[in-house]
């Protein structure tokens, strides 16, 4: 029997392997040769994959650096305080037009606002002030209404808090606070 890496199939023209076109080596008919992975190819694959991972890590670091350099977003008017009854909520966009946030008036002077994106898979959370929570219907995750901390379900990180300021009866959004864990 032929050994593992030995070529057993002779091409139809009968010429030796050295005289054959290169594609015959790339697409061998013999099973052992087809399954053979050269040490050099394996090493090349490992090195390139590792390099890609390292480059990815640097990319994340640079992205973080750019985000921090950008600073807090500009102050924006949300609504007049008199337009929001106690116990009701309001959807607004901050800091960009597609970043929806939810503002809840918990009491006469209690105002909280969070990003509406669930920290699990970015579904829109629903405020439930009577249960003191934000509820994500996608995977039944819930967040504390006052602090934005995850209470149940798959999310592990709190909702980003929108800092608010009330000046002359008008509510302004002043920034985004992302707290880790």
């Amino acid at each position: 029997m032929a050994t593992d890496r030995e070529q057993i199939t002779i091409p139809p023209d009968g010429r030796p392997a050295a005289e054959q076109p290169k594609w015959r080596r790339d697409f061998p008919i013999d099973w052992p040769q087809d399954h053979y992975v050269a040490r050099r190819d394996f090493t090349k694959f490992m090195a390139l994959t590792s390099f890609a991972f390292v480059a990815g890590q640097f990319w994340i670091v640079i992205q973080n650096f750019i985000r921090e350099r950008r600073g807090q977003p500009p102050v924006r008017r949300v609504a007049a305080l008199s337009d929001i009854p106690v116990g009701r909520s309001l959807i607004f966009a901050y800091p960009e037009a597609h970043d929806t946030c939810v503002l809840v008036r918990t009491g006469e002077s209690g105002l909280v606002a969070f990003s509406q994106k669930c920290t699990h898979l970015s579904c829109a959370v629903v405020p439930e002030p009577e249960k003191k929570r934000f509820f994500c219907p996608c995977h039944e995750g819930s967040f504390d209404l006052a602090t934005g901390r995850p209470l149940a379900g798959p999310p592990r990180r709190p909702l980003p808090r929108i800092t608010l300021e009330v000046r002359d009866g008008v509510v302004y959004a002043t920034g985004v606070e992302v707290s880790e864990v």
Partner: protein
Amino acid sequence: MAVPAQMEFFIDPDRCIGCQSCVQACSECDTHKGHPMIHLEYVDRAHSVQTTPVVCMHCDQPTCAEVCPADAIKRTADGVVQSARKPRCIACSNCVLACPFGVPKMKTEFNLMMKCDMCYDRTSAGKKPMCATVCPSQALFYGTREEVERLRPRSAAVNQFRFGRQVITTKVSMMTPRAGRAEYVDVTAAMGERAIGREITLNILTDEGEEEAR
């Protein structure tokens, strides 16, 4: 695991009685349930009941693998040409057209070429192929060369076939009469040849016969 080198496959079409046992046994295999990989062909259906079993001949230079554009047909070190690799086969039917023995068949319901692989799951574990175990007349014989020479003293095993200018050497051998021992079976020359000696002609009733019966 590999097919032992001393175990060989011999086909003796002369002994075939057309019982379809091999076809049924083949279609029972779990790897291709309901789809026989062996073909039982009528040699000249209009004039004779002679049949011949067709299994993969496992060529030394497999034409099916040569023409495969998807690199799907592989030959293992023991010389067995395997059926198309399922993830690679693109169902182009090149092998079906190229094979000189007409062995590969395109299964359009799976978009996959399937052919006889000499029951690799059995033969590589030291068992006989399904068809050879059930053949009642041993037209399909799997064993050593000494065995077949002892059992069939009047026949000689030939494993070279000539198609025009191409001579194909195969792993599977064909039993031919020892008296007219040829180096190879000249397939293209034999295609136009009339059968001699044991030709069976069916009695087909003609109009005259019908009149007589009346």
